[in-house]
């Protein structure tokens, strides 16, 4: 194919630039004609804003969906998941089944969460049911652990109570920032006595039909300080938050490993200490909640054909080996804190580019979005809606014709597996 890809980025990270240069792509400025723009979320807002009226051509590709915040803003993600559950319930879907305590059996994967100040009264009602619980306050629009704090008394968040009975716009008018408040997972799985969370990378190439990929090389981020659920340590954020941006300021931060452990280490440890079966179930469940979170936002997402997105999923595992979705980042950090980190992130971008720009050629946004298996690198197909539908159509056909389904054959989409394992 003639012509080299012309690229722009407003994120000056070596893992990006090295990848573009390796492909012999040509760097241009954003005012020139470009094919590939790896941009920050501030820039994507301008590209798709009504005012600028920018129109992308078929040969242009960007690394965010226009309204990615439906998934990546804490409050909107919760709103969308709640809506998704209700819709499934209305349809009478088996997925929306509840246990005898009224909890969703398959869709209870985010900690109980409320918006503040909007849901203040609902929160108070929930808080009083369980007054000894700890809650975590997070500002809606901030990342990297900024502005986060823990509370265990109502008095600590008086500021967010409603001033007037009627106004739902207190936050905007009084200058109070909007927060989400979530039940704090106070029984996290500890390894070597330390708390950690999982950072997993997920690539979405289209929402309708949904096609998503899980990166095999995620990692665990460890707190440098021993975990204690004791309330006296509520103010010590090193105990509770695993964000590298926070942990870097701790005295014990180690610059060799950066407190990061590979997912394969986690798997080896869990298989060795807890057994293969429960470990597989945990990873199946993690895949399941990622797919469900994407399905929850798919209907509202602007499925622009010029877009793809690589998300950073943050997941906490509790001591019963249940995974909880904490949040999703639209711009996972591409800064490398250690040598291994640099290799990982370089490969992440490399594998992402191999999928979204097949053969490193000038993108055509009308492409079929079905990369060959050998182009996946460290990605694995998490869910492919098209394929899942054609499989289930085949399934229907076969069962109607009275054939027994001895084996389901090899499944292309890993997303089907946890589903089958969980709700049947």
């Amino acid at each position, binding site marked *: 194919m003639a012509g080299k890809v012309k690229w722009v980025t407003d994120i000056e990270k070596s893992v990006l630039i090295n990848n573009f240069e390796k492909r012999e792509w040509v760097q241009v400025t954003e005012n020139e004609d470009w094919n590939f723009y790896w941009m920050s979320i501030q820039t994507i807002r301008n590209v798709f804003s009504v005012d600028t009226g920018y129109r992308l051509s078929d040969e242009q590709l960007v690394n965010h969906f226009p309204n990615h915040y439906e998934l990546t803003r804490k409050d909107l993600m919760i709103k969308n998941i709640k809506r998704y559950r209700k819709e499934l319930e209305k349809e009478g879907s088996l997925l929306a089944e509840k246990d005898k305590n009224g909890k969703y059996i398959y869709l209870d994967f985010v900690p109980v969460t409320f918006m503040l100040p909007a849901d203040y009264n609902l929160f108070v009602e929930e808080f009083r049911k369980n007054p000894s619980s700890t809650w975590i306050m997070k500002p809606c629009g901030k990342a990297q652990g900024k502005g986060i704090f823990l509370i265990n008394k109502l008095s600590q968040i008086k500021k967010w109570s409603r001033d007037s009975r009627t106004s739902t716009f207190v936050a905007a008018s009084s200058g109070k920032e909007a927060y989400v408040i979530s039940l704090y997972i106070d029984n996290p799985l500890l390894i070597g*006595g330390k708390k950690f969370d999982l950072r997993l990378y997920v690539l979405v190439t289209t929402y309708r039909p949904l096609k998503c990929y899980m990166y095999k090389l995620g990692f665990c981020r460890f707190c440098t300080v*021993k975990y204690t659920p004791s309330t006296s340590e509520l103010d010590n954020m090193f105990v509770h938050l695993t964000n590298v941006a926070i942990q870097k300021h701790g005295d014990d931060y180690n610059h*060799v490993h950066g407190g*990061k*452990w590979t997912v394969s280490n986690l798997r080896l440890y869990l298989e060795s*200490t807890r057994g293969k079966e429960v470990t597989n179930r945990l990873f199946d469940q993690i895949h399941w909640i990622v797919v469900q979170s994407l399905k929850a936002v798919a209907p509202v997402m602007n499925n622009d054909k010029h877009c793809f997105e690589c998300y950073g999923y943050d997941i906490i595992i509790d001591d019963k080996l249940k995974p909880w979705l904490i949040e999703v980042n639209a711009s996972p950090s591409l800064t490398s804190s250690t040598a291994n980190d640099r290799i990982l992130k370089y490969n992440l971008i490399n594998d992402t580019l191999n999928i979204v720009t097949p053969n490193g050629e000038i993108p055509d946004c009308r492409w079929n979005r079905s990369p060959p298996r050998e182009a996946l690198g460290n990605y694995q197909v998490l869910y492919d809606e098209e394929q899942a539908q054609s499989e289930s159509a085949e399934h229907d056909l076969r069962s109607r014709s009275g054939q027994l389904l001895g084996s389901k054959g090899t499944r292309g989409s890993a997303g089907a597996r946890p589903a089958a394992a969980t709700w049947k």
Partner: protein
Amino acid sequence: RRMDEGTVLSLSIAQIVQRLKGSHLHSQIERQAKDCLHRPEIKLESLKEDVRSFLKTSGWEKKLQNAIYRELHIQLPPSHPTAPLEHLKEPLAYMRKAQASWEKRILKSLNSMSTELGVPLARKRPGAEQKELTNKWNEMGTDEPDLSRFRPVYAPKDFLEVLISLRNPNHDSCEDVCARSHWGLIQVPLNVRDIPQLRQAYAELNLSSGQLGIDDLAHVHPVGSRLFLHSCLFSIAFCVVVVGQDSAAAQQYSRRGCPTGLRADLWALILNSTNQLQLRAGVIQHNLLVDNLIYKDVKLTASNDDYYFVFEDFLYQVLLCFSRDTAVLEHFKYNSATPPKSYLHGKVGDEEYAVVYPPNGVIPFHGFSMYVAPLCFLYNEPSKLYSVFREMYIRYFFRLHSISSSFSGIVSLCLQFERLLQTHLPQLFYHLRQIGAQPLRIAFKWMVRAFSGYLSTDQLLLLWDRILGYDSLEVVAGRYNLNSYFHTNYAVLADLSTLKVIPLIQIFLFATAI
């Protein structure tokens, strides 16, 4: 005068019976036997048989078998009753002498560290300090004492120099050099196994037999048969662990690699380790100079390791308790080393005032904590972790830093390594020597640590499966050759972390043309 087999056997049996008589298991079984007399199925006329069959069905017989099995592993080679003890530990006089002078050197360096830094070898902690330590027992890693003045007593490279200088005074090595030149650094005449002998000893590693840890050997077994093999192996392992509780069978099984989910139980069974970690009080009450060395070692090694940093606090717990564990002293009966002694103030040289120091007789060196670190992946309970580590140490690891002629001792391992390399990869050996890189200088630190910290953990555990399975460290020596065999580039010499161990050992042993 050599003893005949019958005498050896009866000596061994007598030894084991003697040792088991004093054990907790013995009293437990005795109690069980007494208690069962009230049971209806025990008849007076067939008392002996009935009690025996009761012990069998209630699982006590199996426990006894396992205990005997363990004794067989750690007991001394039976020898003539009049032979002095030190000859049992190490038959060759020049090895004994070398070990003794090495011990003297280490102890001297420890003592001078104590004098120079003004830190006593041991001191009782004041009450407040004891309390503080009790409170932070589970998070000793958060403590940042100033350890800049402490240096490891020795590092593997210091030990290597000692091994290189070993000579047998009764052996004219000059003559040997002319006859069959040896390019390596180790200059003592010990018998080590060559490839045909190794093949015989490690028959289960044969290319055609199934191995766990061979997912990368897809070209050898088609996928279907491999899956079948895995599931077979898995179910065998399951039977062994859950149903059988049989050490001997577990060990046999381990030769082909343990499935990850069963490894922890299999190893505990092979080692017949019992949970115990009651030495905490000893750590709380007294502060030892070696504690600082342990602390420093963990900080220098495991705390900076991508795999093991998570377990820092477990390592302190295990190693500090280990240093106070006098049960470890028992292994000096068959270790060529002798526990170091220290004398109470002003009584130097007076045996009446001598105490073993540290209490377990083992002075840690740079990298010692890496013997424990991989086990943290298997046991999340400190007491279990501790007992498995201690058992591994007194069976295998001590040999990696004691001078002896034992065929799984470090001297033999080094020699075997050099011989294998010289015989089968002469060009590589020659080339490395030409550029001033003696292969043993590269490989020694890997072998001293049984590869811990140099291989990725999953591969390391597969290697240690075989150490337990074959009850020998010999696989450690064979290991290095395999790498060089297939990856003669130097990147590999520096970084082993991406290698797959077992297929390499297999191919080296069974596909090398002799």
